[in-house]
């Protein structure tokens, strides 16, 4: 009677290793460059040596004549623009007429081997008539600056001006008004796998197979079709194992289109493996940003108004720019109660590699500036940093001023958790010299409620399949790039069906078999694909339950399924059936079963009605808060992060192990941006284009990170879950800068806080003190 159902122990503990983890630890996992390319040609790209100019001559005839060169393509071979936003595609895979940044592709070669391909590149003759080039926003915006794009006056891709409520009156009512200008350097995703793709064109069937490092194979599919003028049905995209993305591979990248063009021109297979330097040149990451933020505050810490100006140096092409500059403003809301708000955003063109989306897309730099200012004002008012944040909490469910929907809100609990764990109350103000504590909060969307390509289709579709073998196969277009999305799908299906995880196989991101998915961006997969997977599994469960009911001669509503056993509730041993028998019964008369689950966001979740109001809208925000403990060496300017306590409200941890991994990874990535990472261009050439000069933190200076998971059970999330991969990132940098202020009494206005910047601040302070002294002496 009381025989325990077989429950999957790992599922029950919610600590499930990745379903493809074994492939990764054994070296079996095949990433793009590991795919069989024995008969593939080698692709290489010729890149612009100048920042800005008109191509007056491009002669590939000598290169074409080199033995072993099979194909050469140039801008002439592709007259179609590409891009991620249908309204802003102003980029060609290879320059046509004009080059706008050093490193921009001009031509490409497919040859029998690397040596030949490189010799061919050297034989291509180009002549470029130089134009003035701009590397900082201010220069590009100067009245007499040459335009990068003729239809974009002032070299501005997009200006945003949003006003909500009477912010002027609210500022006037504040007890304290302060403004700060804070700058964040440009950074890069620096995923450890360099970019690569393998394209195969069969001239006989006129079909193209593309295998690439993509996060959104659907975009790649669309853009290949557009740029090669091929029918979408003749293209197949497969995503092999991908070594990280963090946003780098959301947009379609020039080398992917170029490789497809080469494969078609060569009538064969071409492997394009970019160097680390080229991977940096491809860029599409977080722009250099100047944030000027002003807050009006009551004595008790309540915010009355906020105004914020953001200038992003977006690089040479539109890319994601419009979305990034909108995010930077819209996500000022959704974390605290800000009753009035003004936002002015400027996305500026410059002669540098185009920026794009990166983990925490758009939100990170504004959040940094805001949280720094909040702390500085709290200090002035004699308030504790926790107190000032608690004075501004939201009271959900609600819609923010700019129309963002907030249902679940675990921020208060996050604050309690880290305050307690870090011993904040006992320690703050009592740290030894050079040591400090700082804190900050952040949030992020669980999937953009309105996708970029609005087609009227559901936001996510997952198919679940059952055949004679009794295996359950989940088919999803969602790209697992290391974040573990396929594992999440497997868990969602297994839990819903009440079966063991081992029975579930996930097939992901192969356009020939998996349903289209909008891809791995804006932390949408768990929320949207998770819900779609549950929906599909529920449909499958209905079918299985009906089959079990038929077999057991019971009513379907009396059947319960736990641990791979279907039974009549309250019945004995005889009234139960193991999974495989139910599966067989379900196949009778109808054969193999495929059900389709979907997820769609309701209109009210899709943001405000104002222009750009959809950006930032989501079904649910994750909420994070962290405390950072630092030591500052005031002789050398070196900062050490001693420890981090972080709490994240992810709604519900479907897999706590994976959630921890995502939180640790995002906090740490925030640390990289805050401490050491930045791109540096020397007249448009990237001085940072290596993993020596682009300083991703090593394990040595990476601190212990204590993670607390907060579960606010979102009413619409899959099992109540929200996102967990991005929300904690943005609070690291402000927590660090606030901790440094606590340690040495200096407010730093620039990140990363490299030793030279800290030292400069120390020197400036000494100079000011001396000056003040001499002024006093003279008076």
């Amino acid at each position, binding site marked *: 009677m009381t025989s325990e159902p077989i429950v999957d122990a790992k599922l029950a503990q919610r600590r499930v290793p*990745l379903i493809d983890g074994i492939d990764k630890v054994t*070296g079996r996992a095949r990433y793009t460059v*590991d795919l069989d390319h024995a008969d593939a040609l080698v692709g290489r790209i010729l890149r612009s040596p100048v920042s800005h100019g008109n191509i007056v001559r491009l002669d590939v005839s000598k290169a074409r004549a080199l*033995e072993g060169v099979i194909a050469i393509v140039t801008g002439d071979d592709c007259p179609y623009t590409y891009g991620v936003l249908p309204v802003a595609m102003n980029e060609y895979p290879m320059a046509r007429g004009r080059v706008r940044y050093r490193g921009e592709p001009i031509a490409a070669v497919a040859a029998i081997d690397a040596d030949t391909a490189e010799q061919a590149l050297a034989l291509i003759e180009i002549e470029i008539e130089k134009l003035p080039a701009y590397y900082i926003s201010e220069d590009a915006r100067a009245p007499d600056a040459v335009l990068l794009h003729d239809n974009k006056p002032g070299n501005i891709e997009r200006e945003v001006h949003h006003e909500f409520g009477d912010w002027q009156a609210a500022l006037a009512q504040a007890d304290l008004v302060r403004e700060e200008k804070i700058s964040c350097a440009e950074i890069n995703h620096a995923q*450890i796998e360099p970019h690569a793709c393998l394209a195969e064109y069969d001239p006989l069937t006129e079909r193209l197979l593309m295998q690439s490092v993509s996060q959104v194979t659907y975009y790649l599919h669309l853009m290949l079709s557009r740029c090669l003028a091929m029918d979408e049905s003749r293209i197949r995209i497969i995503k092999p194992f991908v070594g990280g993305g963090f946003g780098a591979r959301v947009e379609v990248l020039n080398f992917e289109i170029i490789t497809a063009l080469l494969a078609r021109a060569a009538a064969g297979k071409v492997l394009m493996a970019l160097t680390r330097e080229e991977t940096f040149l491809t860029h599409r990451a977080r722009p250099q940003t100047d944030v000027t933020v002003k807050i009006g505050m009551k004595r008790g810490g309540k915010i009355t108004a906020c105004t914020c100006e953001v200038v992003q140096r977006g690089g040479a092409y539109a890319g994601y720019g419009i979305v990034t500059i909108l995010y930077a403003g819209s996500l000022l809301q959704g974390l605290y109660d800000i009753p009035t708000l003004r936002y002015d955003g400027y996305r500026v063109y410059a002669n540098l590699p185009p920026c794009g989306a990166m983990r925490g897309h758009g939100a990170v730099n504004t959040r940094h500036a805001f949280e720094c200012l909040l702390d500085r004002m709290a200090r002035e008012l004699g308030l504790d940093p926790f107190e000032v944040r608690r004075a501004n909490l939201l009271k959900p469910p609600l819609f923010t001023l700019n129309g963002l929907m907030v249902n679940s809100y675990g921020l208060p609990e996050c604050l309690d958790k880290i305050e307690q764990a870090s011993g904040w109350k006992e320690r703050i103000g009592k740290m030894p010299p050079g040591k400090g504590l700082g804190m900050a909060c952040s949030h992020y969307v669980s999937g953009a409620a309105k996708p970029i390509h609005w087609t009227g289709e559901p936001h996510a579709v997952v198919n679940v399949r059952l055949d004679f073998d009794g295996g359950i196969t989940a088919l999803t277009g969602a790209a697992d790039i290391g974040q573990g999305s396929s594992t999440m799908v497997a868990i969602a299906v297994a839990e819903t069906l009440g079966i063991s995880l081992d029975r579930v196989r996930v097939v992901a991101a192969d356009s020939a078999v998996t349903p289209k998915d909008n891809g791995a961006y804006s932390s949408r997969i768990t929320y949207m694909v998770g819900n779609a997977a549950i929906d599909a599994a529920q449909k499958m469960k209905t079918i299985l339950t009906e089959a079990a009911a038929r077999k057991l001669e019971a009513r379907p509503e009396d059947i319960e399924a736990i641990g791979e056993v279907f039974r009549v509730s309250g019945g004995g041993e005889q009234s139960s059936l193991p999974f495989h028998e139910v599966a067989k019964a379900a196949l009778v008369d109808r054969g193999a079963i495929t059900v389709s689950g979907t997820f769609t966001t309701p209109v009210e979740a899709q943001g405000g009605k104002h222009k750009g109001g959809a950006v930032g809208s989501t079904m649910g925000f994750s909420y994070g808060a962290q405390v950072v403990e630092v030591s500052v060496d005031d002789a050398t300017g070196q900062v050490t992060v001693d420890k981090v306590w972080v709490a994240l409200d992810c709604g519900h941890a479907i897999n706590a192990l994976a959630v921890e991994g995502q939180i640790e990874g995002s906090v740490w990535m925030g640390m990289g941006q805050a401490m050491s990472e930045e791109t540096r261009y020397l007249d448009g050439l990237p001085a940072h284009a290596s993993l020596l000069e682009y300083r991703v933190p090593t394990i040595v200076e990476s601190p212990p990170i204590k993670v607390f998971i907060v579960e606010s059970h979102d009413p619409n999330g899959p099992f109540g879950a929200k996102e967990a991969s991005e929300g904690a990132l943005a609070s690291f940098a402000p927590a660090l800068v606030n901790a440094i202020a606590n340690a040495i009494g200096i407010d730093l206005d620039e990140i990363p806080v490299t030793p030279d910047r800290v030292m400069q601040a120390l020197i400036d302070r000494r100079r000011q003190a001396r000056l003040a002294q001499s002024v006093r002496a003279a008076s």
Partner: protein
Amino acid sequence: MHAPSPPPRKRLLRLKLNGRWREDAVAESDLLVDYLRDVAHLTGTKTGCDGGECGACTVLVDGKAVPSCITLAVRCEGCSVETIEGMATQGRLDRLQRAFHEKLGTQCGFCTPGMIMAAEALLRRNPNPSDEDIRAALAGNLCRCTGYVKIIESIKAAAEVTP
């Protein structure tokens, strides 16, 4: 018509790869990582940078962890070279592999083979490493996904298992 330069002359390289002696023709300019991936077809060893900066290509040469992307293949004549493919034997995961899998020491997996090889060299030398020992031994291996927290946990868990 330009003629490309002739392919380089090759010579025989004899080494013990994952416990088995073998002999292959290699160019003297071949790097060890090229030999492993293109000649021996062991693609578990990864490359993440343009030379010597990330540790993804770490393998063991005579038991020592080295970056194979700046090691000449011909230098390994007579040496024992071990890669990630040599770690699992007879269908059983090695203790580090198991720990990295179960403790989520791997996310995207791209740094993982190099990490595991560097950790293996450490555990052979120091069976009970402290957090600081682990940090020192993996200082040349960059990971962009994990923040290293679970990598350290994985290695500590593996150290508790007798090999």
